[in-house]
């Protein structure tokens, strides 16, 4: 049977190339994602290894709050450095402080993009050479409150030279420092694209953190003292609220933190790789079905000659696995290129990913090969089984077998599959399944498979419906196209199903995005009474200095300027995002739907709770709640306010008195502004902008601009998703081209006849093209139907998360449909050309 498989592969090699292409593309994407992920992972691993290379121990607070963006750890008193230095075996120790510091270019533009790209760090210049990953290339170390050292990349981007005055955005008002040194990170100009501002320790404490406080103490051991030994000695003398980790442990911890943070990204990329392979599996299935059908006579003959069913199944599966293996190997090789391309796509979408050289792990080869071959063989399983059930007499008979029983079974399987998929989807979205991502993915795949199984029942009426105007319009070519699409509804629909997946996902995500935009607009309209929003672009790390809101409130044109801060705390034992608002101004600008209490009187120990959260906990106004902060530990709060509208306020918020008392680093991520009734809109804006100009990262927007920015952000993400889904659609097009090419081979006789009796080459090409368009339209229509359903379900499921509106982007869908027709035309280019080139005599005399 090996011999047969190889000779089949060889004789059908050109036909199989296009099938392999779908596997190649799918595997290339998978391998590319894996390579990119490994590369990013190793880049960060290297970063932390470099930073901590000589570090023997790290002393830090035990107070930790888990937050969305990584752990928030409390600070320690700087006196601990003296305690550490007194321990036997300690060669040197130094306090560490790190915080938000964004450099401003000569032209007044903020450098870096802390919201999406690499962070904009400020920290203290290390005075112990062994523990300092930075190397001075120009100037000297900073000393005193007015001096700064920056990384070489930033000095180029600024551009800044020694002696220049550099503006830095900080918690306090923007400040100027004199550039006294330029440093590299090891030998690199910057650490993975982050900007770095370095001060002496007292200055760093002052502008980045709190005077007298440290984030950690780095410790260097004496020669001959092991890391663990040192850590043990330190632990024994340090207070209970301080812990010691070894340098190796810290590195490991930081590496796994990054790995965890990248986990989402990891899932994101692999989801698209699997979508691509899922689409590819339809094409493999279809190709093998057609090839097996074309080989019915051969199979029959082999059966007549005594080949056993198992041998026939085996021959097809060997063929599939060889094809899968070859395609996977090509795909893996192409994966390196894809990794580079993916990186470009991601950074074009605003996600700047640091990645040095390519990190190609053996595991990439194993996974990709296993998945590539696995998908191919699985997809060929059903066709191969069908091949083996060929009756020996099929060699002689030319009529096709009765498919009625087959179709009844298909109907049943399709209905069960689709129903199970919908059920799982609803459970995944509305219930609480064990693994939501896997559950939703599985459900989506099941729905697609179910609909694909059912699609032949739709294919015939659909082809007739769409084909009729085409037949009227397109003359004989149009008529032939319609009849050919109708000829084998199963083939037409399986081909279309591959396209359906991509279009369905595009449709669902388009609907989700459109609904999200409409919902955001509605939120702003409903709960926002202000005139302007000042945004920093940062979220979670850094932001606008509270000084901005303070200065704005002094303007006569401004009735109220209210900053909103983001903090994290453990409330009732659960880590929560906690908003901090200005009690004096918040009520004037944002309507949170107060049910009980008063925003204006929120004091140091007052907590505002959303009504649903309060109901869940059985809380009432006046109840006490324990709130634990990283810096101040557990504090007793009292519920002072219950509100109904969580769109802007989230689950909890506190007033600024409480926020400042417990969170040391205070930034406003947005400032809302209400103008004084006496001021004109333009006058107020001019005055606000004049103040905001002093804060380089502050962007002043009116409500329409703000809505637009929100919608642009959604679009940015949407475009990224579309670019990745484009791959699935390209694979589907390969599938259409493939089916058409295979069909052309099958129809050699009649194509020859048509040419003989006077069909011109352009007419023949047109017939293939119209057929392709019918298939593409079928796929698009099915995709829209599924997309509409998915979109609706997703929007319903997210109703609690603020997606209150349901919108279908009609214009966008029309564009997609139009593109599908174009894609159909594109897919038909090669098959139609081949059909037209056919030698008439060979075609009509071929047996």
């Amino acid at each position, binding site marked *: 049977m090996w011999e047969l498989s190889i000779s089949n592969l060889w004789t059908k090699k050109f036909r199989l190339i296009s099938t392999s292409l779908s596997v190649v593309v799918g595997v290339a994407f998978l391998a590319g994602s894996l390579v990119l992920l490994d590369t990013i992972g190793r880049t960060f691993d290297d970063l932390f290894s470099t930073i901590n290379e000589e570090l023997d121990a790290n002393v830090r607070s035990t107070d930790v709050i888990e937050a969305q963006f990584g752990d928030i750890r409390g600070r320690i008193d700087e006196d601990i450095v003296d305690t550490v230095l007194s321990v036997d075996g300690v060669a040197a120790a130094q306090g560490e402080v790190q915080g938000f510091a964004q450099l401003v270019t000569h032209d007044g533009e903020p450098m870096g993009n802390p919201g999406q790209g690499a962070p904009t760090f400020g920290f203290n210049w290390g005075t112990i050479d062994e523990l300092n990953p930075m190397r001075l290339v120009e100037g000297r170390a900073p000393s005193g409150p007015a001096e700064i050292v920056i990384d070489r990349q930033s000095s180029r981007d600024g551009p800044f030279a020694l002696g220049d005055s550099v503006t830095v955005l900080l918690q306090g008002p923007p400040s100027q420092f004199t550039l006294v040194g330029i440093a590299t990170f090891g030998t690199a100009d910057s650490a993975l694209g982050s900007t770095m501002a370095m001060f002496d320790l007292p200055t760093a404490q002052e502008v980045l953190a709190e005077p007298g406080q440290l984030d950690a103490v780095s410790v260097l051991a004496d020669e001959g003292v092991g890391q663990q030994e040192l850590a043990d000695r330190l632990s024994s003398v340090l207070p209970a609220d301080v812990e010691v980790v070894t340098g190796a442990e810290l590195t490991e911890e930081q590496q796994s933190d990054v790995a965890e943070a990248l986990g989402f990204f990891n899932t994101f990329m692999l989801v698209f790789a699997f979508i691509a392979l899922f689409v590819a599996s339809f094409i493999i299935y279809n190709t093998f079905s057609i090839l097996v059908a074309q080989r019915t006579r051969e199979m029959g003959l082999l059966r007549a000659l005594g080949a056993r069913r198992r041998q026939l199944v085996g021959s097809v599966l060997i063929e599939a696995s060889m094809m899968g293996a070859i395609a996977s190997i090509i795909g893996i090789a192409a994966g390196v290129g894809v990794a580079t391309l993916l990186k470009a796509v991601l950074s074009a979408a605003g996600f700047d990913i640091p990645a040095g050289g390519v990190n190609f792990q053996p595991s990439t080869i194993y996974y990709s090969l296993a998945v590539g071959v696995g998908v191919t063989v699985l997809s060929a399983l059903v066709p191969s089984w069908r091949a083996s059930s060929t009756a020996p007499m099929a060699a002689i008979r030319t009529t096709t077998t009765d498919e009625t029983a087959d179709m009844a079974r298909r109907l049943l399987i399709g209905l069960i599959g689709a129903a199970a998929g919908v059920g799982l989807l609803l459970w995944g979205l509305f219930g609480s399944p064990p693994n939501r991502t896997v559950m939703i993915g599985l459900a989506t795949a099941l729905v697609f498979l179910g609909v694909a199984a059912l699609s032949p029942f739709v294919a015939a009426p659909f082809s007739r419906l769409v084909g009729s105007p085409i037949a009227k319009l397109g003359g004989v070519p149009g008529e032939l196209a319609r*009849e050919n699409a109708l000829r084998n509804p199963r083939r037409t629909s399986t081909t279309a199903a591959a396209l359906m997946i991509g279009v369905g996902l595009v449709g669902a995500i388009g609907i989700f995005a459109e609904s999200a935009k409409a919902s955001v607009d509605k939120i702003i309209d409903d709960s926002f009474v202000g005139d302007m929003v000042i945004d920093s672009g940062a979220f979670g790390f850094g932001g606008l200095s509270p000084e901005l809101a303070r200065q704005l409130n002094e303007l006569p044109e401004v009735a109220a300027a209210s900053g909103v801060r983001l903090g994290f705390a453990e409330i009732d034992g659960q880590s929560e995002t906690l908003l901090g608002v200005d009690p004096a101004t918040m009520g004037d600008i944002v309507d949170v739907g107060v049910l009980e209490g008063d925003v204006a009187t929120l004091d140091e120990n007052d907590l505002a709770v959303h009504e649903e959260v309060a109901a869940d906990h059985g809380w009432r106004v006046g109840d006490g709640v324990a709130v634990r902060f990283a810096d101040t530990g557990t504090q007793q709060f009292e519920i002072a306010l219950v509100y109904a509208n969580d769109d802007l306020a989230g689950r909890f918020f506190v007033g600024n008195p409480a926020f400042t008392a417990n969170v040391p680093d205070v930034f406003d991520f947005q400032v809302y502004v209400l103008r004084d009734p006496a001021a004109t809109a333009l006058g107020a804006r001019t005055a606000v902008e004049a103040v905001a100009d002093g804060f380089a990262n502050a962007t002043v927007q009116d409500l329409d601009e703000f809505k637009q920015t929100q919608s642009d952000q959604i679009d940015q993400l949407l475009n990224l998703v579309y670019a990745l889904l484009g791959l699935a659609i390209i694979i589907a097009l390969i599938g259409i081209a493939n089916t058409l090419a295979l069909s052309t081979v099958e129809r050699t006789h009649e194509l020859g006849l048509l040419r003989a*009796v*006077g069909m*011109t080459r352009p007419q023949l090409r047109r017939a293939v093209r119209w057929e392709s368009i019918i298939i593409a339209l079928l796929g698009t229509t099915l995709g829209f139907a599924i997309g509409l359903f998915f979109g609706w379900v997703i929007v319903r499921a997210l109703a609690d998360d603020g997606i209150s509106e349901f919108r279908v982007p009609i214009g966008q869908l029309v564009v997609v449909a139009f593109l599908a027709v174009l894609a159909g035309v594109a897919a038909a280019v090669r098959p139609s050309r081949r059909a037209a080139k056919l030698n008439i005599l060979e075609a009509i005399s071929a047996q």
Partner: protein
Amino acid sequence: MSTMTDRPVTTLAAARAEDAVKIFGAGSTEVRALDNVTVEFERGRFSTIMGPSGSGKSTLLHCMAGLERLSSGRVLVGETDLNTLNDTDLTVLRRDRIGFVFQTFNLVPTLTAERNITLQLRLGRHKVDQDWFDEVVDTLGVRARLAHRPAELSGGERQRVAVARALINRPEIIFADEPTGNLDSAAGHEVLGFLQRAVDDLGQTVVMVTHDPSAAAFSQRIVFLEDGRVVDEMSEPTVVRILDRLKEFDD
């Protein structure tokens, strides 16, 4: 479109070949399928080309029908020199001026008998002459089968539909390549009878290739080919005379 009425009645041949040479392959594998063939087929007659296997009879038919190009010499259909036509013009000539009946695969399987019959006309976006259509369909007795697809027709019915298709555009000449090769003798004779009536009653011109003497006997004239050359001719053939002539090839 050419029709019976606007075609000048002349003694001109419907089609003729002059010094036609067709070479397949090259070098040691070179085969001269046609070796300086000069022959003409008159209008309004039923002619047959016969000869042993490999004599070049099918090649001659294909070249005269514009399905294959000559290596040298020329073929004229009416006054049109096929050498002067590009692929599209040649296709249009086949569509508008020639009728075809092949041994098998005469019909497009996805189209009904009616759509197959009118295929050539519709390919050229010509109107179907309903009277002529009715006459052809009734003459061939396929009216009851018009709505059926080829798979639902018997072999004889399929060939009758093919003949109807060949007639519907009132071609200058109908080329039939072994039209009865796949039929039993009863069905075959029926089809040949129709071709004969097409010539006698409808004034058509038919050129047929066959190896079957009883089929050839339906025609008015036989051209014999051997090794790519015209070696003999016969008028008013009978089965016996044809068999006698064919015996000479075996010697």
